[in-house]
């Protein structure tokens, strides 16, 4: 069919001009209906032939209104002002750090409203968790925040151990190894956050430098657990393996190498004039708003509150370790702006190095490996908590990760396992802090929130 139908096709008479002659065509409603159906069918047949030629079966037939039905925009022509327009950002855009779609309403280049559309990476974590035994959920937990899988595992496992009542019995060496790998992973996660943020702003070198050093961490964690990103290393009641022989020495060597490298990043990125101009006073998040929005992690600390669950709740062996909680001071602009968030992340890398140094010292002195040490000695044969409800939370690099468990006491499967992820809540503040800023600043704000869609969509 060579004709293109528009929606305004109406019954009546049409005048077509062919050369010098004018042809008058008259249409009735039934004619038009037939013609429309014919054209759609012809289109579908054509499509299916093309697909079959390429050796593929048609899975579904494209309908133009599928998108409008499944993920409709909040803003339509009817509720927009005359000067406003909608810009669709994502889901396949590198600056959205994954599959996030932002419906941005702009007035010229000023952002009027931002409506995030989520769910493109929804994997039904909570529904899966209702059908799996507690220990088999750990690999799914890895995939929540895949950049900091150790931290997610740690929080989840501590929650289950608390339900079982064995959280005080875990051997010290196991606890120290857990904290060691978690802090290594925290540095890796912050490196991705800082590096990709630099790319968003236009600084490419820090990204390459950070990725180079992150690669060392990935390889060390691979040496420990066998996997680069999704480890399944921390088990309920213990660990998969002990640390490999020689790990402590190599890790110490790496940490000594790493510390000056972070200083380089500070000079290259944080003190860079262009970076400061792009981030200072942009996306300022006042403290009261941050708390009201439930924002946690580096975002909340950048707004000036010394709130770190490792200190506040003091879980695992964190009370025995010495480290500071860095907060944003508003050195380059207002307190709680994008620069402060990056600054807090960089400072936290130093604090993690401090913790790793202390862990390595303990692991090489009084908690030294022994021949009879079994990291799985406290792993329960059957994980069946008594009937109870528990909300357990912990600090991951992105914020507060919480698990609400409901156990019925009769099965090895949680009755309900709800995951409260930090980035999901952190992202909800974006429309509030980006309103009134420039469109290019929206990218800077989004990058500074450090989202991971795996944790948001779950």
């Amino acid at each position, binding site marked *: 069919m060579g004709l293109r139908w528009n929606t305004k096709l109406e019954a009546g008479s049409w005048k077509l001009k062919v050369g010098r002659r004018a042809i008058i065509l008259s249409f009735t409603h039934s004619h038009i209906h037939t013609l429309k159906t014919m054209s759609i069918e012809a289109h579908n047949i054509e499509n299916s032939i093309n697909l079959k030629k390429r050796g593929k079966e048609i899975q579904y037939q494209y309908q133009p209104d599928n998108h409008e*039905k499944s*993920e409709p925009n909040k803003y339509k022509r009817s509720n927009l002002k005359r000067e406003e327009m909608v810009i669709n950002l994502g889901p396949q855009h590198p600056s959205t750090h994954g599959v996030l779609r932002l419906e941005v309403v702009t007035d010229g280049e000023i952002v009027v409203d931002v409506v995030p559309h989520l769910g493109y990476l929804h994997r*039904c974590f909570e529904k899966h968790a209702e059908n799996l035994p507690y220990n088999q959920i750990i690999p799914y937990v890895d995939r929540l925040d895949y950049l900091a899988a150790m931290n997610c595992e740690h929080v989840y496992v501590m929650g289950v151990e608390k339900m079982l009542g064995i959280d005080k019995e875990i051997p010290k060496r196991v606890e120290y190894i857990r904290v060691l790998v978690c802090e290594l992973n925290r540095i890796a996660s912050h490196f991705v956050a800082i590096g990709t943020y630099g790319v968003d702003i236009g600084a490419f070198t820090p990204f390459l430098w950070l990725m180079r050093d992150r690669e060392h961490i990935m390889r060390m964690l691979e040496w420990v657990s066998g996997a680069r990103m999704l480890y399944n290393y921390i088990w309920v009641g213990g660990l998969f393996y002990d640390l490999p022989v020689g790990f402590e020495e190599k890790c110490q060597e790496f940490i000594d190498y790493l510390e000056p490298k972070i200083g380089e990043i500070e000079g290259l990125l944080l003190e860079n004039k262009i970076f400061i101009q792009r981030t200072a006073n942009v996306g300022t998040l006042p403290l009261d708003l941050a708390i009201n929005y439930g924002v946690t992690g580096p975002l909340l600390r950048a707004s000036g509150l010394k709130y770190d669950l490792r200190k506040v709740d003091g879980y695992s062996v964190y009370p025995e370790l010495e480290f500071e909680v860095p907060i944003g001071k508003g050195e380059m602009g207002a307190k709680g702006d994008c620069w402060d968030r990056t600054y807090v992340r960089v400072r936290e890398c130093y604090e993690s190095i401090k913790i790793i140094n202390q862990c390595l010292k303990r692991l090489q002195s009084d908690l030294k490996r022994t021949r009879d040490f079994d990291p799985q000695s406290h792993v329960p044969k059957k994980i069946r908590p008594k*009937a109870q409800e528990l*909300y357990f939370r912990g600090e991951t690099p992105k914020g507060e990760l919480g698990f609400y468990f409901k156990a019925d006491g009769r099965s090895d499967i949680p009755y309900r396992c*709800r995951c409260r992820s930090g980035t999901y809540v952190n992202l909800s503040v974006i429309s509030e802090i980006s309103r009134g800023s420039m469109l290019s600043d929206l990218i800077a704000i989004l990058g500074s929130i450090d989202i991971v869609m795996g944790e948001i969509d779950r």
Partner: protein
Amino acid sequence: MTLNELKELIEERFGIATVMPSASPSGQNFLIIFKERLVEVLQFLYSSDKTYFDFLSSITGVDNEPTGATIDVIYNLYSIPYDHHLMIKVELRRNVEGESIPEIPSVSSIWRTADWLERETYDLVGINFTNHPDMRRILLPADWEGHPLRKDYKNPDYYHGIKVEY
């Protein structure tokens, strides 16, 4: 502040009927509040100098289908200055087939974070939050049928002509 002190504080102000402490053996204790006075009680807990629960960690729903005909809504509150935790539970009657989903007033006027948490609960568990500024599905597509975290949820066979294999 312990749970019993909190319970007394709420009972003193809102009458004896609203609070029932229920202690589970090794997990967290929680308060049960009736949905009629939920917003008042939470507003009081948020603004009172003695409690000051300024941080809402999580809202979620639990379907108790095989054993009871209720759906629970669970609020996890935390007070940053006092370092208190509080789990609040509201029991709703579960809707039978043909009825509309249960309703509960929204608390997004107290904590802005409740906006997205309630949307997620609506999406996955199927609880309607009245007075919510923007009650839409958030994780699932807008034309998805059913609420997956209901215990009697059936997986659909097709979605937009795509075979959904499970």
